Each structure stands twice: as C-alpha cells, then as structure tokens.
C-alpha cells in the first residue's frame, strides 16, 4: 500500500538500491581483472583504464547511496506516519468503545512500536532490491568464469547464511523467554520511584532495596545466560559463511595451479564469496523486518476493524427535549431541572447511552437517536475523565457556548488559574498531574461547562474539594444551568440541599430534584 502510494519514490529507491550495492559487488571482479590484465601482464596503460573504472564505480555508488538513503528514509517516514495517523485517528473515533475492546497498553504500544516496525519494513525495500540485483549480477559473472566454482559460491553462501536461522531457532526462543525477565527489573525500579515518598516517609528503604537487589541479580544472571545463547550465533555467523570461502579458495587454488583460471579470477572468487554474504544477509534482515511488520500490521488492523459499540441507528431520530427515564414511564430526571442521584456509574452510563439500555430521552429510546446529536447534546462527565496536556486556556475551551471565564467562575476555579504563573497560558502537564486533585476536579468541571450541553450528567463533581468551595460550586452551577437538565450523581449533602425535594423522587429517598425557576418548559424545543 505504501509502496504503491508513491510509485516514483519506490522506483527511485529500487534503482538507487541497485546502484548503491553493485559497485561493491563487482569490485573484486574488477580488481582481479586489473591485476591479471595490467599489473601482472605489465600493461601500465591498461591500468589507468581500470583505475578510471574503479573511480567511476566509486562515484556511482556514492551518489546512489545518498539517493537510496534519502528515498528509504522518506519511505520510512511515510510508512510510520501514515500508520500512526491511522491508529490515533481511529482511536479518537472509537472513543468510549476503545477501552472496552482493547487493552489501553496494547494501543499505546502500537503508537510507540508497531508503527516503527511498519516503517522499518518499507524502508528495507530499496536495499533489498539492491541486494537481489547485485546477487544476480555476481552470480552470472561467476558462473560464466567457471561453472563449478560459481555454483559452489552461489549455492553455498545463501545456504550458509540461511542455515544459521533454523539452527538457532530453539536458541532464539530461549533467548526471548529470558529477555522477558529484563523488563521485570525496570518495572520494579519504576515502582520504587513511584512510591518513593512513602518509602522515604515511612522508612522501608532497606527492605525494598533488598527486594530490588534480588531481582537485579536474577536479571543479570539471565542476561549472562542470554549471552551464552547468543554466543553460538556469533560463532555461527563467522564459521558458516567462512566455510564457503575456505571451500571456494581451496577449489579455486587447485584450478589456478592447474592453469584453469587466472590468479585474478582467484581473487575475484575469494572477494565475491566474501561479498555474497552481504546481499543474503540484507535479504534475511528484510524478511525479518517484513515479518515483524506483518505482526505489527495485524495488530493495527485489528484496531482499525473495531467499530464503535453503538451504531448509528438505521433511521436516526432527532433528539427531543424531555425527561430522562430508564423505561417508559420511569422518569429518573425531569427535564430542565437539577436532579441528584446516589453515585452509580452504571446508571449514569445507561442514562446517557454509554451502556446498552432501554433508557429514553423525552420518550424516544436512546438507541434510536442520532449518535452525533446525542453526544453533542447529552454529556456524561466522569470523575476520572482525562485532562489533556497543553495550555490551560486552550484545553478548557472544549466548546464556545459558555466562555472559559464564566465556566471557571461557575466551577469556582479562578484561584487555580491565578495560582499558575502564566495564568491561562500556563501549560498543564500530562493528565493534569501538575495541579492538585481538587484543582483538577474543578478544571474538569469548567471544561464540561464550556460546551453547555442540554443534558449534563456529572459524577461526584466535587468529591475532592472542601465544603466551602463545594457550597459555592453547587450554587453557581444551579444558577448557570437554570432551565437545563442537570443530573449529579453524588453522596454529598450540599448537592441534595440544592436540589431540594420538589415532586416525587423516583429512585428512593436519595434522589431529589428542584424545579427550574421560570423559563424552561418540559418537552419544548429551545
């Protein structure tokens, strides 16, 4: 897909790949011929020609390798970037469905590993073409000089290089198993750092250092064992291709002594059999990269195939104004009022269409409502919602229906902004870790308020703030959302006081709601 997306680039990579490897491939042949026909034969005039050829080849290779690198790098960027965009775009599109269908860690790993694997496979394209071309050219030349010797080199070298693979596959597996232990010690180090305040505060350093030392030594020993396993690979990489060079040299020497081939041919064979390892290894690496990319692409593909949990209904209905009810006639929250319910996330999700249910809004089943409209007008804000890194002012302005300043005032968060050195321009760190729990909670609330949804469902919006602040927030939100449907799931008494019991509380004594003063009329479109 990536290869065909930019055919010009792909073609450039292929040509440059050949150009970057062929000169090195034929260099032993050229040197052999030069020694034969001019140095040994005492023809200095010819030598200039040979030297010119070497120089020419050097320039071709230099230019081609620059172009190859440029093209391969471009292809890598193209591959990795388009994969990354696909992953992030789809993750954003899946929304709440994503954590239900796939482990977050797995999706994060796609962005940090799989997309690079995909890029790496695309990047090897040019070099692989170069490897195949140079192998073919050297093959033709060698077989033309002496069929026997040529065949030995051509069959032997790939066999030797490829032979390392299956020979070491069991070793490879063992190595992978041992490798997994390496991450154990890193995880433990991170754990100690994360809990450092506790360790330093209460005093468990010695105990935990002891635990760390045990794991650390075990990982070191596992590492040494991996080294022992790998050392066979290191030895085989020398011995197997070397064996072919020995055989070629031995046979070649006998032929040369018999006068069947020239000394230059002998040099050419020796150099070529040493060189042939390079294209074969390049091809093997490309195959490895391709298989890693296949696995990575499989993972990415599984993500891309995921569809949002709730489809757009076949005949989407517009979302009416009206009360929220769990079933026909079972009104949970009347329209245009503030309703307080006991904390119950499952209930909140059923009411807002994040979980499958028979819930209705204004008498229309949620599952029949146009999804985009539902999400735009019915908002569920949870306590563990994500505060994204970035400039506070920008991150809070999720919508423009209510100004950030008004939302901040309603969430009683002006002091949070005032305490930041650059105010609205201050940069929040990842997940809002740079602010305290109570401050974070108020910022989350303010962000939701800027969108001014028709139905706002809040889960424990003030659990981390003091009673004084909570009282202010309750009062201001009740005022700001006058005439709109607001549901707060909380055990806080202050919210309950605010939503003083008007009408029958439908779900036990814990729920209560307050008539919205004046404006709103149930069911009427605004």
């Amino acid at each position: 897909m990536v290869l065909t997306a930019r055919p010009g680039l792909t073609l450039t990579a292929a040509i440059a790949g050949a150009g970057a490897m062929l000169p090195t491939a034929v260099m032993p042949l050229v040197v052999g011929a030069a020694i034969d026909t001019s140095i040994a034969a005492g023809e200095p005039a010819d030598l200039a020609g040979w030297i010119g050829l070497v120089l020419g080849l050097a320039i071709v290779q230099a230019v081609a390798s620059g172009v190859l690198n440029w093209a391969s790098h471009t292809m890598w960027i193209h591959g990795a970037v388009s994969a990354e965009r696909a992953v992030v775009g789809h993750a954003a599109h899946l929304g709440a469905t994503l954590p239900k269908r796939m482990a977050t860690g797995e999706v994060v790993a796609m962005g940090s590993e799989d997309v690079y694997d995909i890029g790496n496979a695309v990047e090897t394209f040019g070099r692989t073409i170069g490897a195949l071309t140079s192998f073919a050219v050297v093959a033709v030349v060698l077989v033309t000089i002496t069929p026997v010797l040529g065949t030995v080199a051509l069959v032997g070298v790939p066999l030797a290089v490829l032979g390392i693979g299956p020979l070491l596959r069991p070793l490879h597996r063992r190595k992978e198993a041992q490798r997994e232990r390496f991450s154990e010690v890193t995880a433990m180090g991170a754990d100690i750092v994360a809990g450092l305040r506790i360790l330093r505060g209460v005093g468990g350093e010695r105990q935990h250092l002891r635990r760390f030392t045990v794991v650390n030594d075990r990982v070191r020993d596992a590492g040494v064992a991996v080294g022992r396993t790998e050392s066979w690979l290191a030895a085989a990489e020398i011995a197997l291709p070397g064996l072919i060079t020995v055989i070629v040299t031995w046979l070649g020497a006998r032929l040369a002594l018999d006068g069947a081939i020239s000394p230059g041919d002998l040099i050419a064979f020796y150099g070529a059999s040493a060189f042939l390892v390079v294209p074969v290894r390049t091809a093997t690496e490309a195959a490895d990269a391709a298989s890693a990319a296949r696995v990575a692409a499989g993972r990415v593909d599984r993500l891309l195939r995921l569809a949002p949990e709730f489809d757009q209904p076949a005949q989407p209905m517009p979302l009416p104004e009206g009360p929220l009810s769990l079933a026909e006639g079972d009104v949970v929250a009347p329209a245009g009022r503030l309703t307080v319910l006991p904390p119950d996330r499952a209930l909140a999700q059923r009411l807002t269409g994040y979980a499958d249910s028979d819930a209705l809004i204004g008498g229309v089943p949620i599952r029949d409502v146009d999804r985009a409209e539902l999400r735009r007008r019915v908002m569920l804000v949870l306590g563990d919602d994500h505060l994204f890194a970035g400039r506070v002012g920008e991150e809070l302005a999720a919508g423009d229906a209510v100004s950030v300043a008004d939302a901040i005032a309603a969430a009683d968060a002006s002091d949070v902004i005032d305490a930041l050195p650059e105010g609205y321009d201050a940069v929040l760190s990842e997940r809002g870790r740079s602010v305290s729990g109570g401050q974070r909670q108020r910022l989350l609330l303010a962000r939701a308020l800027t969108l001014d949804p028709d139905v706002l469902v809040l889960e424990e919006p003030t659990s981390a703030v003091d009673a004084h602040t909570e009282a202010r927030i309750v009062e201001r939100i009740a005022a700001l959302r006058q005439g709109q449907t607001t549901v707060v799931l909380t055990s806080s008494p202050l919210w309950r006081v605010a939503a003083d019991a008007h009408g029958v509380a439908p779900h036990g004594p814990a729920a209560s709601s307050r008539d919205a003063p004046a404006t709103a009329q149930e069911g009427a479109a605004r």
Partner: protein
Amino acid sequence: MMLPLADARMVRRWLRDVASRKRGDFAVMLTLFVLASLLGLVGPRLLGVLVDAVAAGRRPPVDVLAAVFLAVLLAQAALRRWAHVRATRFGEHLLATARADFTEHVLRLPIGTVEEAGTGDLLSRATSDVDRIEYAARYAAPEILTSSIAVVLTVAAMLVTSPLLTLGMLVSVPLLMLTTRWYWRRANPVLERMLAAWGDVQASATETVTGARTVEALGLADRRVAHNDRALRAAVATEHAHRSLLARWLPTLDLAYLLPVAAVLAIGGLAYRSGLAGLGDITAVTLYLLAMSAPLVELLAWVEELQVGSVGLRRILGVRRVRPARDGARVTPSGRDVQLRDVRFAYRDGHDVLHGIDLDIGAGERLMVIGPSGSGKSTLARLLAGLAEPRSGTISLGGVDLRCWPHDQLRGEVLLLTQEHHVFAATVRENLMANGDDFRLHDVLAVVGADDWVRSLPEGLDTRLGPGAVSVSPAVAQQLALARVLLADPPVVVLDEATAAMDNGAARQAERSVAAALAGRTVISIAHRLDAARDADRILVLDDGRIAALGTYDELVAEGGSYARVLASHDSPVR
C-alpha cells in the same frame, strides 16, 4: 527544578571503577576479541601467498593450506564465541551495577528534592534511560569494540604486508575525518530534537488513547487528531533535517573506502614494475581494504546508539550528585509539643502561601485543619512533617527546630499521610513495610477495615498486589497506607485527606477506628469532610494562608461566621 546530570568526568570515573572491579574479565574479553580479529586477517594473506605461487609457477601444498585456513576459521569462531560470553558477563555486570547504584542513591534522596523535581524525571531515568544504557551496553558497545579492533588490526596487517601500498589508504583519511566531524557537529542537536519530537508524538497519542472516553464525551476527536498531526509534523521536520544530513554524509563514506582501492591499484602497478611489491602483496592489501568496509560501516552506525546510551548513563549517574538527606547527630527533644512561630512559606518568590502562622499543638492533641482549597492546608502539613522548610519563622518539635532533626530520627516522630496512595508491586506484607508478627498485622488491618479483604486473598498477607497480580482499589490502597502508619506508630501523625478515596460510610468508620488506635498520639488531620469535626479537640480554620479561626467545635459554631454555617450544614438531618 531538574535533577542534575553527571558530567563526562564522573561517567569515566564510574566506568573505570566498575571495570577495575572486574579487571580480570575485562582483560580476558579484550584479549579474546583481539585474537579473534587477528585470525580473521589470515584469509587475505593466505590468498596472497597462493597468488604469488601461481604467478611464480610454484606448486604450494594447497590441501595443507586449505586445512590450515579451515583450522584458523574454526579457531576464530571459537574465540568469538568465548569473547561474546565474556563480553556479556562484563556488560551485564556493568548494567546491574548501574541499576543497583541508581536505586540505592534514589532511596537516599531527600524527599524535598524528589518533590521539587517531580517523580516524572526520576521515573524516566529509572525506565527510558535504563533501557537506553541496556541497548547501548548489549548491542552498541560490543559492536563498536569488535569493529574498532578489526579496523585497527586490518590497518596494521596492511602495514605489515606492505607499508608502501598502505599509503593508498591516506586518500580517505582527511575525507573521513572532515566529513564525519561535519556530520556529528550537526547531527547531535538534530538527534536530540528528533528524540524529543517523537516523544511528544507518543505522549499525544498516549493521551488520546487513554482518554478515549473523554474524547468521545466532549466531542474532542477532531481536536485530538489535529493535536497529533501537529506533533507528527514537528517530528517529520526533524526527520527531514536528519535525512538531508545523512544524504550528504553517507556518500562520503562510500568514497572513503572505494577511493583507496583505486589508489592501491595505482601504487601497486608502479611498485610491481619496480619490484617494490609482489602480486601477493597487492592482492592481500586490496582484499583487506574491501574487508574493512563492513566494520567501518558498523562502527559509524553504532556510534549514534552509544551516544544515546552515554546521555542515559549521565542521567542515571546524575542522582549521585544530589546531596543525600540530612544525617546529623541525634537530637534530644524535651517533650513532644509542636510549636510554630511566624511561619511563612512560598513556592515562588514573592508569593507567600502561609503568612506568619503562630500555633502551639500540645502532645496528644487532636487538631483538625479546615479551610478552602488553596488556603495552605497541605503546605502546612508538609512543613509540620519536615518535608519542606519555612521561608522564615520556625517550627519545633519538643523544643528542637525541625531543621536540626536528622531525617531518620524525625520520621520516627512525625509521619505525614496524604491522599496520594501507591501500592507497590509486592506482597501485602511488603507493602505494610513492617516486621511485626501476623497477629499485629491482622489487628492493624482490622482497625483500618481491610482485614476481611486481606483474609479473602488466596495467600493472605503473602499475596502479591499490583499490576499483573491482585489489583487494589483506591479505597483499599488508602486503608493499606493508614495501616502502614499505624504499624510505624509515630507519636505525631499528620493526615492530609487520608480517607478521601473511601466512600463516606467507610471513611467515617476508618477515621473512627484509626482515631481510637491513635489514642494518646498527636493527630493533626486535614479534611474537607467535616463529619469528624466534633471529635477534634480543636479546629483550625485556615483562609488564604492565615489563621481565620481556632477553637473547639462549640466555640466556632457559637462564634458564627461562614465556617459555622458549613459545619452546621454537615450536622443537618438531610442524609
């Protein structure tokens, strides 16, 4: 504040120390690599001998020579294997030492330093930087070692074979030196920016993925995609910069190893005519040249990884430069009264968060601190626990200024428990960090309300907790943290929202039983839930860094004012 980096001298000294502790291993490893490389040079020389013989029409014992060649090859492979084993042993020793050193020093850091620097920095040192040096030590260092040995020995072999022909090499020396220096000067800053830019891309993607629900709820999908695109564009820009550097530098590497071939042929032609070099010498030297391209390319390719690794090592060793926590002589306090005199504190110059607090807390008193968010409650808690020092004024315990207490002695006296809870990936017992017998542990767990939970675990106190094992809810994490403090049993306890993650019922229950367990201790508790206010001896109301009111519950209610109303609302029969 950033934690410091180690300088190059510190890194060198550290490496020397580690190497000298394993001097034997190190020497054997080097010797083996050198021997293996030497044997690798036999091939071209042997071919030179053959070429000479053929040219001279002699008949050398080809079969014997081939057998020698084979023996040399096998010996070379065996040496390489042995060298590899030694190299990993040495490398793993080095890595284990680095990791252990780091953890040991981290565990000695003063808490104030950790808090100022934030755990993020330390965490990235403990993970990404450890990964970087592992990659460098396992892959880059051995490759660079073998390649540089190979290059040096190959040049030496060329010199031994024919100094005259080796002159051909000279054409590439200035080329290689100039262009490589040119590249590295420019590449380093580009690489640094590139790593940072891809880090941003990952951070952005991670946020979108982990916050996927929020993205849907607030309709932020387009914004997040745009955010990601911006980060990607920045990363691609650095990739382009790196690409154009590479596209100019790499061709010179090709020239650097092909031009000498032409030079050797030219010199060889002249030398052969004048009898200064044999055909065998020319053969051997050109073959050496061609063989040198592989280690040369490896060398240059891995230097980048080694550089990344050395930056990682500098960050890891950097924690050694932080002065460890105070370890002075033990102090002898008289009594355990806590006294604050005109205490002022600022996180930023000119922005005091506490404005001259005067307060006396008697031994065994239960003091509750309330006040709006941002009024300085948590700051006061940290100052009381000695985690930060007042900008001016003094805090003393038993008449001794907290600044004079050695860290280890002070934490036996005062413990701060915050709502931040961390569960170690370890057993319940290890998480409690106490050496008490099981009865005591279960008793304390019962006090905080977690004993039933622990007893329901498959292996009780020895059950492993944390990721990949038994997961722990925030409420239980807080119960464990409370238990930890009860087991440590210090005379003064500062609780900062210590039960915020539990639901109201459980929190009240836990607070009540913890209060009973801490009878006789000084307990300073900061809370936004006011249920326990009646049980406190005194209540301190902080507002904007000043004491707004201080007195018993009844006094405060009688006095009226805003806090009286809040207190009263919690007594109202709404629930």
